[in-house]
């Protein structure tokens, strides 16, 4: 503890150099935070995907419809807690660049399937009572400044209304919330409203999400479903929700590897800056270190002194950087809805702190060992 003033003095021996080293590490960790956030948003919430949920899609592909009659058959299967279906609506609010997901569901099975969507009971009740009712995520509500009671028109791209034209109107009856990683940019409205009023496609749904009571049975149940609907007009392919989301993410490409590659480049670049600074700073102090040794400082003490200094720089720059990245992410998605989940996961914050320690140690190691091995006589003679 008593060496803190000494370390502090050493760190600020050259203010200019320390400041810019700190700034470099700061930038490195701002970038690390943002890159990890992008990586997480392209995983589409796979980490919170329910192990107890199965997704049934048409065997040909997701865009082919399934009959609504499968609902009853799924519900009657042993081991199924609740079966719910979803239908992609693809409606546009004013302009295609305002894209957000809007999906037709049946309120009760839907909310039972997704307990992580939090909706106040009176809003659930309101949704049950309003055929044109729709619920929206907190982020979506903030994006367009929508409130409960608002009437929102969407332009249909797929399902044209029987009443003519292309516009469907919805009443916002609820705003759902959820923890980190829950997609709060979606809109859900009632399937019966869609089905009764669309020109074609009656009795068809997009896909099913089935909540099962025992996740250990997932594979077995999945095979059972696919067999049940085999040789029918609409064969199915069942996967766990996790598998489904992973598959979807893979369609985009390996964003994860790209982000990790860029992060590594960044950390290497700026780690090098830190290392070079430390090396220089130790080189400049050769004689001082020799004096310390003459005064009886043990080798390990010298090692600790230099390492602490380098750790301090890595930590200060890194923590401020990661903190700023976190603040930036709190501000929400800057790309206007293209990244529905915009969160810096706790896991990556922990990894970031680990990387700061690693960077501090690696940057300080060589100079610290060099300082430790200094021969007093040589070092004092050098000047």
């Amino acid at each position: 503890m008593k060496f803190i003033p000494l370390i502090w003095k050493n760190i600020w021996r050259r203010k200019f150099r320390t400041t810019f080293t700190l700034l470099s590490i700061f930038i490195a960790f701002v970038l690390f935070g943002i890159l990890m956030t992008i990586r997480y948003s392209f995983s589409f919430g796979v980490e919170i995907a329910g192990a107890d949920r199965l997704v049934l899609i048409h065997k040909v592909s997701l865009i082919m419809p399934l009959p609504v009659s499968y609902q009853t058959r799924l519900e009657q299967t042993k081991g199924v807690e609740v079966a719910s279906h979803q239908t992609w609506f693809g409606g546009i609010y004013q302009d295609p660049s305002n894209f957000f997901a809007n999906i037709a569901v049946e309120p009760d099975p839907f909310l039972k399937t997704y307990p992580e969507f939090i909706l106040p009971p009176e809003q659930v009740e309101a949704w049950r009572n309003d055929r044109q009712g729709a619920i929206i995520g907190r982020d979506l509500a903030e994006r367009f400044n929508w409130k409960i009671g608002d009437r929102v028109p969407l332009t249909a791209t797929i399902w044209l209304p029987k009443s003519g034209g292309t516009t469907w109107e919805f009443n916002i009856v609820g705003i759902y919330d959820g923890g980190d990683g829950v997609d709060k940019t979606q809109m859900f409205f009632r399937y019966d409203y869609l089905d009764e009023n669309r020109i074609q496609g009656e009795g068809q749904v997009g896909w099913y999400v089935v909540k099962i009571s025992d996740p250990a049975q997932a594979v077995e149940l999945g095979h059972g479903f696919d067999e049940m609907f085999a040789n029918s007009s609409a064969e199915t392919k069942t996967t766990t929700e996790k598998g489904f989301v992973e598959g979807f993410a893979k369609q985009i490409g390996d964003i994860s590897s790209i982000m990790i590659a860029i992060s590594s480049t960044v950390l290497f670049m700026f780690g090098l800056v830190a290392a070079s600074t430390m090396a220089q700073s130790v080189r400049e102090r050769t004689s001082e270190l020799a004096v310390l040794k003459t005064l009886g400082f043990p080798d390990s003490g010298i090692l600790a002194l230099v390492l602490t200094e380098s750790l301090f720089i890595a930590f200060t720059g890194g923590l401020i950087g990661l903190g700023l990245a976190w603040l930036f992410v709190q501000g929400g998605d800057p790309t206007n809805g293209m990244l529905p989940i915009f969160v810096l996961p706790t896991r990556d914050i922990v990894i970031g702190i680990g990387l700061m320690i690693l960077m501090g140690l690696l940057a300080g190691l060589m100079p610290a060992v060099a300082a430790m091995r200094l021969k007093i006589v040589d070092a004092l003679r050098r000047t």
Partner: protein
Amino acid sequence: MRWIAQTLAVLALNIRTIPARLSSSAVAIIGIAGVVVVFVSVLSIAAGFQAAMQSTGAPDRALVLRSGSDSELTSGLSGPDVDVIKQAPGIRRDGQMTLAAAELMVIIDLPKLATPDAPANVPVRGISAESIPIRKEFSIIEGRMFEFGTNEVIAGRAASGQFVTLKVGDTVVSGQNRWNVVGLFEADGGVPETEIWIDARVLQGAYRRGNTYQSLLAQLDSRDSYDAFRDWLTSNPQLNVSIRREDEYYATQSQALTRLIQTIGYGIAGLMGIGAVFGAILTMYTAVATRAREIATLRALGFDTGSVLVSVLAESMVLGLIGGAIGSTAAYLAFNGYQTSTMNFQTFSQVAFAFRVTPGLLAMGLFYALMMGLIGGLFPAIRAARLPIPVALREL
């Protein structure tokens, strides 16, 4: 003249002594090279995707979709609609044939070769006999064209390279359907190269689509016939359609993804650039500090402050240029022509493309590197020029 000679003399001295300060110079060079690699390679993704999308379509062809649809997939045209549309003025006629092709799109799940465990949305286009003469860029490169009325298909060159079971002789299995791949085609590197083509009527039957289509592609008499064609269709009360020039349609489809990649690319490269400038400042500051005595000596000998300033700046820019050249070369060697495919959200289909490290991107990368060098050198240069001679000479 004397000033220039002085500057050049100091600069030559600086550059010749870079090897002596190798480790500190390397920090700046590696930093700038890292920024340029990331900058050029991320933007080469956007450039490649955009190139694939924009080399598709021609201004003298028009695409007819149902009103309100923003892509072929969400559109729908009935058989009778198609018959009406074909009567529109401005469509080129070639003997008996009206050059207007009704087409149908279905997406099927096929795994990518790179990720065999995960299915990808591969577009299947049901085409009419007219589709081929309209697309002059189309040509078979392997095998042969499919026979209409059979379950034969042909696959785009890019699709064949990205997804399973799309080589000549393979069988594509989708649900209960089995299709034989009899040929591969190319189309100027455009979007259709990621598609599978089949007889529209066979596709209608396979997926119970009845006599419906999703789009109609018309070859116009000329670019200028577009307005007449569009006006006739939009004013026809029997129809509820929207019309676009084909090239504009594909350009629109590429906007969202291109913008996303560019935003991410510029954002990351911008932040990294700031960091690299800090690195360069540190390097140049060290360079100036270790040579304080030399610089002071030069100035005591009568060298101008201006030439000292410019020479430090120039040294920093040389470091930037070296970093930029290393970065650009690395990005070019590693990524140019790298084949991949991604899902375009606007069409919900896979598009295959190759990363394109274009000369423009390389130039931008080098320019950016020079700027980082310039800004990084600025403060140290001013410091060198202002160094009080007696103090500097007394140092050490």
